């Protein structure tokens, strides 16, 4: 327990997420298009809380798989459409043929959420037609290296570079993207103060900075850099980034997403995650952050799923008792998946931390 008497109320949080699994309040209808993302928050939240035994995994698997867009033939993969996962039923119309999407609105963020959920419930991703996802995904990458999330166009920024990298990583196949171009785009998003903006020239932002650093980590550009190379040969300016990130811890112990903005629970994960990936997490004031997060625990109001989820994730980074450890760059727990528990990813993070602690 915290000296101020605050305690992480795990059981209440499990109960809350179980309620959300049962039925989301009407206010969530405006987010209907991101139904898979809402499911991701609830299911992954239960996973972090170590309560995934409360859900019906088969039901979840078939529900998630029902959102996948399937090409009719292999030649469809050249038609410019993206064959990933739809965000919700209102973007999916499978009336004509049960297997074929007549109006394909599949989306990179929903595809990331779908694969993440499938993994955490232990579904074997090699059962998926990953070729369709990866080949059609290539068309979403722009000449500048960024990604648009959906084939008929939308904003292009770091969020979708991250989603693309996480998708390739989870499918263990990088044919879906040009890594070098994506890296160049990410590098261009680093601002003069060390943080990353969502697009080149934009103000540094905690969420964007996570997308940038986690994507670089998934693509393998940080492992090699931080652990073994001198600062000057790194693809990004790490010392400036570390200082910007640490500076985001405000006087109340919480993290802000941008300079001169109030603290918010979610940035304890976004910015904390950046520091964790880079091996500088032990430099933040953990006690102060812990107190801040616990002070945000809802007492009698229903919290929102998004902030709830990232608070659990942030507390997991702080090694709160009873919470499962995370694979930070994937944004989900580390022990369920079969791909990313190998030394390929986890090993170098540890060794980079060791280097900093030694020096």
């Amino acid at each position, binding site marked *: 327990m915290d000296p101020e008497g605050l305690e992480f109320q795990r059981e209440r949080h499990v109960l809350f997420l179980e309620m*959300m*699994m049962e*039925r*989301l*309040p*009407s206010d*969530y*209808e*405006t*987010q*209907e*298009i*991101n139904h898979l993302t*809402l*499911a991701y928050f*609830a*299911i992954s939240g239960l996973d972090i809380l170590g309560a995934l035994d409360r859900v*019906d995994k088969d039901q*979840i698997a*078939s*529900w*998630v798989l*029902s959102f996948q867009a399937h090409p009719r033939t292999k030649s469809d993969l050249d038609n410019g459409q993206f064959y990933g996962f739809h965000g919700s*039923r*209102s*973007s999916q*119309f499978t*009336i004509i043929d049960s297997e074929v999407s*007549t*109006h394909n*609105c599949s*989306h990179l963020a929903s595809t990331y959420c779908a694969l993440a959920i499938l993994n955490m419930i232990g579904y074997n991703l090699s059962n998926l037609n990953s070729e369709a996802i990866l080949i059609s995904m290539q068309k979403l990458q722009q000449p500048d290296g960024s990604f648009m999330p959906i084939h*008929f166009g*939308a*904003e292009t920024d770091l969020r979708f570079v991250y989603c693309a990298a996480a998708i390739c990583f989870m499918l263990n196949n990088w044919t879906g993207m040009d890594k070098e171009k994506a890296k160049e785009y990410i590098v261009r998003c680093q*601002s*003069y*103060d060390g943080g990353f*903006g*969502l*697009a080149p*020239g*934009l*103000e*540094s932002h905690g969420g964007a900075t996570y997308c940038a650093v986690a994507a670089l980590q998934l693509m393998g550009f940080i492992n090699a850099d931080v652990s073994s190379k001198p600062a000057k040969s790194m693809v990004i300016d790490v010392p400036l980034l*570390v*200082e910007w990130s*640490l*500076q985001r811890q405000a*006087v109340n*112990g919480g993290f802000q997403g*941008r*300079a*001169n903005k109030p603290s918010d629970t979610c940035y304890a994960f976004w910015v904390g995650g950046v520091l964790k990936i880079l091996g*500088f997490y032990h*430099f*933040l*004031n953990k006690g102060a952050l812990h107190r801040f997060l616990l002070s945000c625990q809802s007492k009698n109001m229903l919290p929102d799923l998004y902030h709830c989820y990232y608070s659990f994730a942030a507390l997991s980074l702080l090694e709160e008792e009873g919470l499962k450890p995370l694979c930070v760059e994937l944004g989900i727990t580390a022990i369920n998946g079969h791909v990313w528990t190998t030394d390929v990813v986890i090993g170098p993070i540890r060794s980079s931390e060791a280097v*900093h602690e030694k*020096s």
Partner: protein
Amino acid sequence: MSSSSDDDDRIPFSRRPEWSDVRPVPQDDGPHPVVPIAYRDDFRETMDYFRAVYLADERSSRALYLTTEAIEMNPGNYTVWHFRRLVLEALNVDLHEERDFIDQIAMRNPKNYQIWHHRRWIAEKLGPEAADKELEFTKRVLAYDAKNYHAWSHRQWVLQSLGGWEKELDYCQKLLEDDIFNNSAWNQTFDFGLSYNQEYSKVRYFVITRSPLLGGLQAMRDSELSYTIEAILANPQNESPWRYLQGLYKGDTDVLVSENQVSEVCLKVLKIDHSCIFALSLLLDLLCYGFQPSDELKGVIEALRKSEPASSDDKLASTICSILEIVDPMRSNYWAWRRSNLPSKAC
């Protein structure tokens, strides 16, 4: 479930004569949906009719009207927005009218990605003539929330794609005068600076062949430096101008080190505010880059060290780290690490 009180006089689509020929397509969430949403009746009905016209690919004025209702309930639904654009194109609607619609809905949902994307789509179609209106609109949004990320993003896109740079620095200056803590405006100023430099240096490149880039940058730096120093002195606790100051010299630390005004502003601030972490950390960086401190500066720093007396072999940089460990408790581990990792050239 009843509809919300705002919409009490709303007539359901099923009772509107103009829709009598349409059979709604109900949402099929399957037998065992995960995280099912408790849809309100009017939401569900509107989406059922939307599905019907979308599946029929009906690009009509009533379909356009339907998308308006669906968007008002559900502004994040990119499928509805996408269909709306198809309808707008098919009907050849005057996009100035569409922009008026977006004016209203964006003011009510200023942080919705899809609305801003739609706005960009309109502006792109209208071309350079739209620049003034777009800049005016983002100005209105920023008057409510001067840090709205979407508005700044849109504004940068307008400047880069449609033009209107002329008054941008004045505008940022104005926002900064209103709220010196507005980091977004600092960032925009920086972006302006870069674009200005690029244009400036491009012209000079063809006119003067010797060191055009350096000349352009330095010319910009001098004026920016004095403005930034002024902002720092007005409010030394504001992180934004400190970061901006270092940003002006990014990748050019030798120039940063040799610019006397930089260490002078740190000194000035520390004389008034002994524990200003931004001044201390900038001095630390300067020393790590090889800056040679004056005796006056050494004296001021030594005076700040309150506890144990200095051992003779202590570097000034090390002393600064020790002070930072105390005055910046959130990051004391970091400053301790910096102290044990000082480069050999640091004084």
